[in-house]
């Protein structure tokens, strides 16, 4: 089956600073893919590049973003814009980044419906109430007349989701959609997204720094480090049998309730500030397994249909027969 979206060797620079390199992954229709990584690892820049929302001085300097096999990066900006909202939609950590404070909820949802679904004003107003109901907002008719500031954080998040869904996208990119919310509200929103996904069959990219959210809500995950994808795999593979030393370190450094841990494992050092000048593995200066060869460029070593890691040492872990270089 052709993937819905395939990102190949994406590279992004901000002015002269390279912030993404060799970013590749794909997502199938209806699938949920988690992207995890620490702050600054390039998760949001990846999402914005797919959406065609990268703003200056940010610029894609290499790679391809294939949507149903067609490279979005070659499209004129206008055509890319037309896909946005309709084919793919994005929701953010802070709902006010896409809600307009001076318009009512009704106007904002109706606009999407009129623009992308060709509805009349009257049809759109009715459908807008439907969408609010679908995202679990009580008294939708009353809420339609509200302005964003009159709503709680959790409700604004729901309105933003309703707006994203109104275009009936095939792909929803959720960038830290629940980070600013309380945990019980976070659970409500994620449950809602899963239900809506089951109903509409849309695919979802869930971007988060919370490994637990990926473990619980995605089928596959991509781990980013310093602007690169260092590992991908099914959530079972990633969380029970991680291959990259960085993924292994991250998992070991997590406190887990119910377990006895006296001191936590810590990854020594800090994330490199720039990629320039690092030809080899970006994790090498913090890696307990680093050897001379790690200073050479690392390719993804694949050892199952779903799992691959950007580290030559993972070969030792699984044995020659099972891995092949991509």
């Amino acid at each position, binding site marked *: 089956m052709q993937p819905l979206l395939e990102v190949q060797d994406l590279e992004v620079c901000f002015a002269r600073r390279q912030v993404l390199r060799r970013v590749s992954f794909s997502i199938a229709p209806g699938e949920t893919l988690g992207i995890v990584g620490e702050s600054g690892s390039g998760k949001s820049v990846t999402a914005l590049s797919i959406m065609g929302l990268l703003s200056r001085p940010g610029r894609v300097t290499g790679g391809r973003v294939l949507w149903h096999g067609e490279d979005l990066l070659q499209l004129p900006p206008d055509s890319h814009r037309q896909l946005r909202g309709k084919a793919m939609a994005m929701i953010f950590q802070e709902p006010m980044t896409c809600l307009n404070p001076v318009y009512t909820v009704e106007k904002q949802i109706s606009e999407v419906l009129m623009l992308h679904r060709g509805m009349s004003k009257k049809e759109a107003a009715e459908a807008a109430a439907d969408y609010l109901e679908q995202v679990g907002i009580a008294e939708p008719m009353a809420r339609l007349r509200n302005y964003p500031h009159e709503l709680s954080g959790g409700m604004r998040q729901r309105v933003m989701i309703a707006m994203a869904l109104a275009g009936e996208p095939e792909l929803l990119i959720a960038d830290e959609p629940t980070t600013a919310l*309380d945990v019980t509200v976070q659970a409500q929103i994620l449950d809602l997204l899963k239900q809506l996904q089951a109903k509409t069959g849309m695919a979802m990219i869930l971007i988060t720094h919370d490994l637990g959210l990926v473990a619980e809500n995605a089928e596959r995950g991509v781990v980013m480090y310093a602007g690169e994808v260092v590992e991908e795999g099914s959530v079972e593979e990633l969380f029970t049998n991680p291959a990259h030393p960085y993924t292994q370190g991250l998992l070991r450094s997590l406190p887990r309730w119910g377990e006895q841990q006296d001191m936590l494992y810590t990854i020594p050092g800090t994330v490199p500030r720039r990629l320039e000048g690092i030809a080899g593995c970006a994790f090498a200066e913090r890696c307990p397994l680093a050897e001379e060869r790690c200073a050479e460029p690392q390719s993804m070593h694949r050892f199952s249909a779903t799992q691959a890691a950007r580290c030559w040492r993972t070969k030792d872990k699984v044995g020659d027969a099972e891995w092949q270089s991509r």
Partner: protein
Amino acid sequence: MAEQVALTVKDLEKVFPLRRGLFARPQGGVRAVDKVSFQLKSGETLALVGESGCGKTTVARILAGLEQPTGGTVVLSGKELDFASKETPHILRQTNQMVFQDPYATLNPRMTVGQSVEEPLIVRRYAGDRKQRVRELFAAVSLGEEMIDRYPHQFSGGQRQRIGIARALASDPKILLCDEPTSALDVSVQGQVLNLLKDLQQERGISYLFISHNLSVVWHISQQVAVMYLGKIVEIGSREAVFLETAHPYTKALLAASPKVAPGQSRERIVLSGEVPSPLNPPSGCRFHTRCPFAKDICREAEPSLQDLGAGHHVACHFAGKM
């Protein structure tokens, strides 16, 4: 001898007056902290958990001398504090120090971090060699001496949190009030700060009041846990009691909602409906009844009091142990 108690808080209360308009007289108020009681033992950690606006930070701010309570008593090292006295905030600041979520906000960008750490020493007229003491404090939080003359923007988030802790330690506190100290940090850095806090506690016998919404972190760092909802403690006890013999439906929901890194493991999922009610107008009876999946009529009518389930485990629920 019985374990030493560092701090006893009884029926602590804070009502913020509400004014509609600048010159209007206060009309009622927000009961941000409502009859909160707990005991913090020397050298131990008590965690306060709960969602935003439940009053955790207000409790810490009262204990740091930054806020006046409107009721209740606080006993610090065996002495009851008189909140009418001008001396009290001063006494509180001497023994209790806060560590904040965002250390950047508390460090002066125009001062070197060494000067920021030295400042509390000047304030309390430290008699010894101040420069020497600053070097010791930097060593205590595992920062090299060469860092002392740098400015806050030259540090990573985790390093700034270490500086925040060094500054808090400069006053030789008996109690650290840690308000979400690792929430702004990445996982790999969070571990470093948690280990540091554990080390300091073992070396110096400091007690921590530790505020966090991350239950895995709370489990890792604390011996006692208190769960707050809309200003009240709904469950309190040893971490094992609260996490493993959970008695309050709200605690159960919090545990169910906190993501775990164990894929494929099915677990009890309690997803609450509804939003967190406003503390301005808390629900009648049990404050949790509007979101509680087990609520019955009595929950809407009568407020449950804290019941003793034994071994210091207390819970405020009409159906505790009967669900």
